[in-house]
């Protein structure tokens, strides 16, 4: 699955996107975030306030309990500040 990062989350992780293989048992957005946090300290710290992280599966905004399903792209980002 492709993961996209935006704004300060992109900067803190020092990457705009990556491809990851979903490990067994990871079926929701929240579980995937928890999985990413186990990877290293930088990633763990970047997600330390999960309520500040918004998610979109393909082109739909979703909550953390949303199933990843067959989506090709997950985007993770801070609260939006457009307009």
């Amino acid at each position, binding site marked *: 699955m492709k993961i996209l990062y935006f704004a300060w989350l992109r900067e803190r992780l020092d990457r705009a996107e990556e491809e990851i293989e979903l490990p067994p048992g990871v079926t929701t957005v929240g579980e995937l975030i928890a999985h990413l946090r186990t990877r290293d300290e930088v990633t763990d710290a970047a997600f330390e306030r999960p309520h500040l992280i918004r998610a979109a599966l393909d082109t739909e905004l979703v909550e953390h309990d949303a199933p990843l399903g067959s989506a090709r792209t997950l985007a993770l980002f801070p609260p939006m500040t*457009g307009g």
Partner: protein
Amino acid sequence: MTVRLLVSPFDPGAETNRFLAASEGAGAAVTFTGLVRRTSDDPVTALTLECYEALAQAQLERLRDAAIARFSLIAAEILHRHGRMLPGEPIVQVMTLAPHRGDAFAGAEFIMDTLKTDAPFWKKEETGDGARWVEAKGEDDARRARWD
């Protein structure tokens, strides 16, 4: 195209005139233009908007369609820039057209309030001291919630 993501500045008045030219007999048109602010106590020298384009296009089209249905609009358009922009330049423009002015006003305000919290743009301000991400405001969530 009734929803446009742009990286260059746009001409607010020319966009309004183009929109009005297709007014089809409607009586009331509202244009909202958001500009890069320039205040003496907060000297932002430039603003960069990051954008997730595929999601932004989808969200703004949904929002436009929702506004048209909810407020019986004849037409609605949204323009939103991303990239780097300077104080005084336009960031966003929303235009609505309706038989009744109350609907044209409400439609434009609904689009702006919802866009602020639901469209994937992120503002980074440059000042003399460096650059910082703008934090989302609780006030924006409150304005958004008025329409639920």
